[in-house]
């Protein structure tokens, strides 16, 4: 049995950016595990995430001490041609020996079916972990997803922040090496302010405990996260409960080593501010957790997380309160200044703010949105007046002081200010809802006005950006067009809004065409269509449909004429796939499709004639198909695609019998054409919903 021990790597750095911390730590661990595996070492991988603002840490348990020995075998030339009659080696033999780094005498012989040949075999002893680890670590560091590499001092290396030390240990021993210009050691620094002298680590196993016990550092990210969560709840307990945003909790966890939650307060006067403003001030500006009472109302309190546990906490608390007071005073000043003017005074100013150079100002966009949302409202039979008003005011809150300070409150402030201006309630709500969904799983706009405006806003941006060739590539999507397209799809499908996407794009294009910013690029419908279709595939996958169901449905009627109907057909296909008849009918459809592809010429024009049918199976199928044509028409009219496919499922037996007993490609061309025409009809029935031949049933 090979010897095993734990492996420890710590990269000690200056404070790392919190938002990238867990990604770096995970990547480092994965790359090192991968490197060990490739080099033939064994280890145990757990899911611990070890990272603090000043250290990236990897611990792998029970790593083998040595690579397995490698047996190297090589076959050389046949013995019969390797030697001169006097036994002296020919060049083939000496050449082979040389390539194996031995003399001819040292070569062995091996019997092969072709005859005896020269043979070389050696056992390469596996390298020790001590020899391999520095290179494995160096390679893993190269692969780190560092957002912005930096240099420091006059060093030639780069990293996310300056590096101060590397611990590399195997069991109790230091693995010697030089990584990022640092000589590996067993020494580190503890908490910045508690421990001024270096901490020595006795073994990889002892690392986490040593730092916790003697260095004021919780290395385990999730442990620290739980400590902060518990402390935060505890700190608020007496008065209410904290609002813990998980992203903020992660950020705070990533910026502390020895956290302590502290309850602080602010003046009641600030509670008159919109709650979103208070929350943004606390969460975004000060990285603090808000506190609510039992009825979920904000209290004039917040929880600050310090990275130290001082003897007296009151100074840190009063310091944080002072900063919060300054922040909230600013916010209150902005809010009160904004309330002095109605939103509509900003409309002209929108003309000074560029939306996109080639697409004009926010005023240009507003004017397009008015036309576009009017068009959408008409298509959806929504009340137009409020929608046009909402479109007119849609971007005005961007000009307010509050949104200038908190850009993420766009729309939300619009709603507050519109209400204050006594705009219709639907208009106020639409100003907020136009931005929804703000992220993939966010809520959708609930009001008709909000939905129309949300669709208009997204399609205007999509058509405009594609029209000037600002198309997302790879990970680059500066205008968040993917999110816009995904939101568009969600709103239309999940709210069952029957809009012809193709027509909508054309209308948007025309609105641009008749504005000051006509789009240079033509035929954008195709690229934009593909782009939206890609997002549709994502949506479909996220909503429990399989890829073959999606492709089958795409094979039916044109998807972009109505996404709601597309969804209905998709659901029908999903249900159909569960029917016992599905497998056989999918296979039959595939067969029909192949036959029709091979015999494409002109058959579509033919209608099958009853009097040309001979075999009983084809007569039966023809009768059944004729019957189904009538029933299917009713289902189709009601858009009941699930019912339609269930109805068609009855065709399984006649179809199966037809293929068992009837020869489609009969010698008589008349009979052949007639049978093809019958199959065309059969396929047309299914194609009203989907291309069932693409379903993979029972295949797996």
């Amino acid at each position, binding site marked *: 049995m090979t010897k095993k021990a734990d492996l420890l790597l710590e990269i000690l750095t200056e*404070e790392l950016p919190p938002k990238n911390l867990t990604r770096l730590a995970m990547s480092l661990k994965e790359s090192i595990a991968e490197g060990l595996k490739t080099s033939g070492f064994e280890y145990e991988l757990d899911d611990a995430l070890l990272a603090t603002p000043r250290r990236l840490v990897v611990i792998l348990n029970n790593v083998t001490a040595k690579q397995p020995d490698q047996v190297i075998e090589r076959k050389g030339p046949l013995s019969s041609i390797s030697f001169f009659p006097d036994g002296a080696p020919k060049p083939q033999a000496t050449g082979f020996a040389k390539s194996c780094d031995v003399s001819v005498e040292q070569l062995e012989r091996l019997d092969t079916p072709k005859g005896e040949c020269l043979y070389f075999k050696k056992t390469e002893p596996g390298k020790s972990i001590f020899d391999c680890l520095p290179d494995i670590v160096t390679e893993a560091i190269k692969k780190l997803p560092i957002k912005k590499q930096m*240099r420091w*001092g006059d060093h030639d290396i780069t990293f996310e922040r300056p590096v101060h030390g590397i611990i590399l240990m195997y069991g109790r021993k230091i693995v010697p090496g030089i990584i990022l210009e640092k000589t590996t050691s067993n020494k580190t620094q503890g908490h*910045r302010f508690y421990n001024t002298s270096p901490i020595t680590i006795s073994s990889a196993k002892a690392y986490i405990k040593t730092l916790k016990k003697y260095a004021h550092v919780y290395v385990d990210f999730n442990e620290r996260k739980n400590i902060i969560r518990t402390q935060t709840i505890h700190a608020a307990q007496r008065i209410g409960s904290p609002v813990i945003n998980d992203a903020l909790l992660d950020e705070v966890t990533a910026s502390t080593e020895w956290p302590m939650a502290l309850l602080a307060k602010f003046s009641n006067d600030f509670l008159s501010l919109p709650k979103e403003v208070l929350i943004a001030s606390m969460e975004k500006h000060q990285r603090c957790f808000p506190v609510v009472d039992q009825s979920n109302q904000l209290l004039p309190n917040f929880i600050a997380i310090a990275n130290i546990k001082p003897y007296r906490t009151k100074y840190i608390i009063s*310091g944080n309160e002072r*900063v919060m*007071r300054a922040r909230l005073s*600013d916010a209150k000043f902005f809010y009160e200044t904004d309330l002095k003017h109605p939103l509509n005074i900003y409309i002209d100013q929108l003309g000074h703010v*560029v939306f996109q150079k080639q697409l004009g100002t926010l005023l240009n966009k507003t004017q397009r949105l008015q036309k576009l949302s009017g068009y959408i409202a008409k298509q959806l039979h929504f009340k137009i007046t409020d929608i046009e008003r909402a479109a007119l005011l849609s971007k005005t809150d961007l000009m307010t002081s509050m949104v200038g300070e908190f850009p993420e409150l766009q729309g939300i402030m619009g709603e507050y200010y519109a209400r204050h201006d006594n705009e219709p309630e639907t208009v106020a709500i639409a100003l907020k809802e136009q931005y929804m969904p703000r992220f993939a799983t966010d809520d959708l706009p609930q009001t008709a006005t909000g939905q129309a405006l949300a669709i208009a806003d997204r399609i205007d941006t999509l058509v405009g950006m594609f029209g000037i060739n600002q198309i997302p590539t790879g990970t680059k999507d500066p205008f968040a067009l993917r999110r816009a397209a995904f939101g568009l799809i969600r709103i239309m499908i999940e709210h069952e809004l029957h809009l012809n996407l193709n027509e909508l794009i054309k209308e948007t294009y025309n609105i641009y065409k008749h504005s000051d910013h006509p789009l240079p690029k033509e035929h954008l419908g195709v690229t934009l269509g593909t782009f939206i279709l890609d997002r549709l595939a994502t949506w479909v996958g996220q909503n429990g449909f399989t890829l073959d169901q999606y492709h089958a449905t795409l094979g039916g009627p044109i998807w972009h004429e109505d996404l709601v109907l597309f969804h209905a057909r998709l659901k029908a296909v999903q249900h159909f796939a569960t029917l016992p008849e599905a497998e056989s009918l999918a296979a039959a459809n595939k067969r029909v499709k192949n036959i029709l592809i091979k015999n494409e010429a002109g058959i579509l024009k033919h209608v099958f004639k009853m009097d040309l049918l001979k075999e009983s199976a084809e007569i039966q199928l023809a009768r059944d198909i004729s019957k189904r044509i009538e029933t299917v028409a009713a289902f189709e009219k009601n858009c009941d695609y699930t019912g339609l496919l269930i109805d068609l499922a009855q065709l399984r037996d006649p179809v199966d019998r037809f293929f068992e007993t009837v020869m489609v490609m009969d010698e008589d061309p008349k009979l052949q054409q007639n049978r093809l025409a019958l199959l065309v009809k059969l396929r047309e029935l299914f194609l009203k919903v989907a291309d069932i031949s693409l379903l993979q049933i029972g295949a797996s």
Partner: protein
Amino acid sequence: MFTSKKPQTFQDMILALQTYWAKQGCMITQPLDMPVGAGTFHPSTFLRAIGPEPWRTAFVQPCRRPTDGRYGDNPNRAQHYYQFQVILKPSPDDIQALYLHSISALGIDPKQCDIRFMEDNWESPTLGAWGLGWEVCLDGMEISQFTYFQQVGGLDCKPVTGELTYGLERIAMYLQNVDSMFDILWSHTPRVTYGDIFKQNEIEMSAYNFEYADVNALLKQFDTDELQCKTLLENKLPLPAYEMILNASHAFNLLDARHAISVTERQQYMLRIRALAKAVAEQYYTSRETLGFPLLKKDTA
């Protein structure tokens, strides 16, 4: 970490910082005698960060940011304030420790408060400069900017300059436990507050910045400065050319305060300054190179 006695006044605080940094081998130099928005514009920062020559200095720099004026009404914001700027080139490996010791030298005990290095990367599009670093927070309040320069004037920084910028008023408010910058005690004898010196200045300068600054004259000045800068560059005079950039920058900031520049134009003006800054940076590098990078020789001698 040894914690000193708290300086009681604004002037004591400056003296404490100067004494501390002088001991760390920094020349104590003086502010630039021109309006600038930050210590970064001081030639001792912007120009000295260029090229291989070492540079260690500390100085107070008065800053003017016309748009931040609040007529003296806001306790935390003003159009004129002070930065304490420390430039360490190359940035020493213990630069964070040096900085933290300076905080202790101000009588702040890092074990009794919450000092944090929060990611904050710096970018100045007009100077073609960027760096990575932090804002340093003290009990939730930003008290310093800490930057490792990566590029200046479009040139890679080799070696890297470390820039430490202290917000003096904020630190003084903390040390003196006052809620308004105007209540900061500047000196004991005579007993003078920050407000005694600057309140009236804030009121009058805000009025000038927002209401009276002559837009046409400023627009013309910007163009003149730009032209002059180009002429100076043609005559291989990067130092006065740099001063023209500072003039143009300040004119631009005043125009901004007067809302005389639309968003679209803004970008154009910034690009114009950036082009000049790049040209000055390159020419300054060449002129130092022609001189044989004199400070480099001094350093190794």
